[in-house]
């Protein structure tokens, strides 16, 4: 039977929503699942993790060195935990997981599976390649399966659990070559891009950061998160953490409204799994119309305010 370790991502004493989706993969693999919380003081995060369905046990590793998680410090501790009979070590496919998982895999001397999007068995998974234009089924070799989970492909598990929380200590030597300096976080009242049911995204055609207000107005009217294309981010209209696509966030909302976005391969990689795609663009030849369920050819500066008013 599989014994699965899910690494919890958290910040400011709160469990990241990505952990629940990672647990959905553990559920599909089947087996005994533990969640590891590495923190300076992990009590609050562990209590949240214990409520998630399918968790048999929450392991808390408290260490002042974990206050600002860096992969260099977390990896040796996770490697030590992983060696205690785990068949799988799963990470959310966030920047946290992507940075950390390969460091753990290399230390365990195994190849890593990136972005699991479907589970066929304990060691057989689907993952996207070529910006999502090919789906590859891979079979992991013998040894621990270290993997990250593509969040857009799974639903969060229910909060019906009541797992035991156990504080454990690890003796791994922690390096000092990596030091956290600061985090400049973007504060937003809008729904989180990766978990929002609706997302409105703007592209280059917005023309300026000031003009982006028409996108925000529509998003706020329908309670949507706001995303952007690479062009809009590179032009400085919005911060980089709003980028949707192959190198930004991969999302799968119920409704995705692309405004002034042409629909390059790299952008489509991030939205292919959206349930309904709406494209508003003045170029009828834009590739975004090939994937849109509803397309409207027109000037976004007229269409958006009109749409916002009529909703």
């Amino acid at each position: 039977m599989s014994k699965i370790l899910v690494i919890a991502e958290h910040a400011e004493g709160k469990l990241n929503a990505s952990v629940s989706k990672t647990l959905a993969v553990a559920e599909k693999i089947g087996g005994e699942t533990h969640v590891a919380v590495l923190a300076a003081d992990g009590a609050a995060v562990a209590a949240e993790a214990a409520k998630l369905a399918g968790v048999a046990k929450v392991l808390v590793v408290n260490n002042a060195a974990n206050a600002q998680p860096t992969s260099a410090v977390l990896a040796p501790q996770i490697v030590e935990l992983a060696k205690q009979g785990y068949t799988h070590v799963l990470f959310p496919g966030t920047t946290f997981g992507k940075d950390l998982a390969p460091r753990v895999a290399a230390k365990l001397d195994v190849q890593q599976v990136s972005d699991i999007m479907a589970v066929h068995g304990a060691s057989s998974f689907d993952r996207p390649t070529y910006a999502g234009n090919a789906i590859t089924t891979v079979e992991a070799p013998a040894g621990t399966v270290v993997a990250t989970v593509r969040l857009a492909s799974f639903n969060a598990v229910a909060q019906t659990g009541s797992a035991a929380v156990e504080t454990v200590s690890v003796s791994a030597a922690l390096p000092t070559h990596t030091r956290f300096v600061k985090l400049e976080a973007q504060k937003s009242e809008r729904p989180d891009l990766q978990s929002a049911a609706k997302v409105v995204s703007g592209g280059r055609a917005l023309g300026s950061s000031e003009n982006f207000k028409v996108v925000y107005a529509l998003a706020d009217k329908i309670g949507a998160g706001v995303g952007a294309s690479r062009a809009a981010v590179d032009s400085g209209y919005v911060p980089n953490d709003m980028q949707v696509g192959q190198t930004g966030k991969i999302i799968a909302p119920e409704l995705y409204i692309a405004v002034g976005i042409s629909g390059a391969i790299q952008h489509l990689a991030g939205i292919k799994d959206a349930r309904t795609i709406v494209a508003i663009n003045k170029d009828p030849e834009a590739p975004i119309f090939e994937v849109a369920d509803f397309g409207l050819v027109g000037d976004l500066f007229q269409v958006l305010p009109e749409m916002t008013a009529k909703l």
Partner: protein
Amino acid sequence: MKALVSVKRVVDYNVRIQVKSDGTGVVTDGVKHSMNPFDEIAMEEAVRLKEKGKVTEIVAVTIGGDKNEETLRTALAFGADRAIHIKEAGEVQPLTAAKAFAAVLKKEGAQLFIAGKQAIDDDANQTGQMVAALLDIAQATFASKVEVEGNKAIVTREVDAGLETLEVDLPAVITADLRLNEPRYLKLPDIMKAKKKPVETVSFADLGVTPAAGLKTTKTVPPPSRSKGIVVKTVDELVSALKAKGLV
């Protein structure tokens, strides 16, 4: 200080790839290839560090068959001083690549290993992190700003929450995000000069690297296609269509 930059030859980012109908992979024969875009950014950053006097020598390294020499020549045209071609005709997965790069890094005594954050073909986003792990050195992934001061680097990273800054001791691994820089256009004289720069060829055996067991690909299929939708004429039509589906 010496910088090692890894570069990969991939199907060009503008190509609409085709999955083979027998499910064995994607068509790569006769398809335009170029340097992985993230690696161009890694090369550009190394060259800028050299122009600022922080780096004295840039060594470009690649793993792959004969055609990868083109990719190395591109790296040399960017401004690499010399190149190392680890010749291996078959598929090489990240852990094996990392073992080879770690061996070269050690042999060269380089203080910086700069790589792209991911290759746009396998989309793994693993190799840089694995090199750092194998050598027990610092890593700063998804970098959008790099400053080298003495024996350390201050790196701003693109993370989900915004921008994170780390200070790392050298030697260190840095992986480049798209916003790190804008790679320069290569000029003809530089391309001509690159032809004369030295390229050393080595094998996994020369480096003492045994390939790690890899993931076995059992099937490759195209993603489910989306059916073409409808084009509406007016905002009213769009709004009622969305209301009918219960989306707004």
